[in-house]
């Protein structure tokens, strides 16, 4: 049977500590592998502000899993993810094999860092 490629984006609760998040990410990876999926890539986007509140939370920790396997994996994994209280949202979509290759990080919405002070170019002063 031909292997299908899926992208699962999971939004974990943003108030969780780093240790708990690490465990949760490993848990989801283990869940997918338990369903005989091959996890090609795990992209941690990090903590981001949610565009709207979900379960009274304002921030979420985004993780993208690119995995392949049989066609019933999204359904089986979704059943478990839906019961996990630490998961605010998840979305699984069918992807192409091009998704396996790592891409550049998505544009973050975090405010840009203030550039270091640089000497002003010499020139006539305007009043």
């Amino acid at each position, binding site marked *: 049977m031909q292997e299908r490629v899926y992208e699962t*984006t999971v*939004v974990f609760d943003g108030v969780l500590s780093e240790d708990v998040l690490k465990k949760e990410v490993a848990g989801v990876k283990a869940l997918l592998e338990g369903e005989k999926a091959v996890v090609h890539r795990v992209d941690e986007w990090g903590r*981001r502000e*949610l*565009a*709207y509140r*979900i379960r009274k939370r304002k921030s*979420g920790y*985004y993780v*993208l899993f690119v995995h392949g396997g049989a066609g019933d994996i999204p359904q089986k994994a979704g059943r478990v993810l839906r019961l996990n209280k630490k998961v*605010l*949202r998840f*979305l699984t*979509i069918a992807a192409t094999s091009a998704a396996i290759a790592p891409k550049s990080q*998505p*544009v973050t*919405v975090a405010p840009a860092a203030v550039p270091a002070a640089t000497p002003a170019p010499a020139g006539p002063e305007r009043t």
Partner: protein
Amino acid sequence: MGRQRFRSRRRKVCYFTQSKTEPDYKDVGVLRRFVNERGKIVPRRLSGVSPANQRKLAVAVKRARFLALLPFVADNIK
């Protein structure tokens, strides 16, 4: 009777065709260019996106909204 003068309009080019990319729900920075300040998808007659890419764009924006990467309705309007 004065003669009407028509200014030749600049032909809009599809952003995705030009950049050889496809709309992706993960590219929030790009998607934000195609939603207005209310959070609604900009029609292709204004954005110049090709019909095939506009359909993909609509799906990508809806996926991004579901994952709370984009708002369904802008905060200042709620």
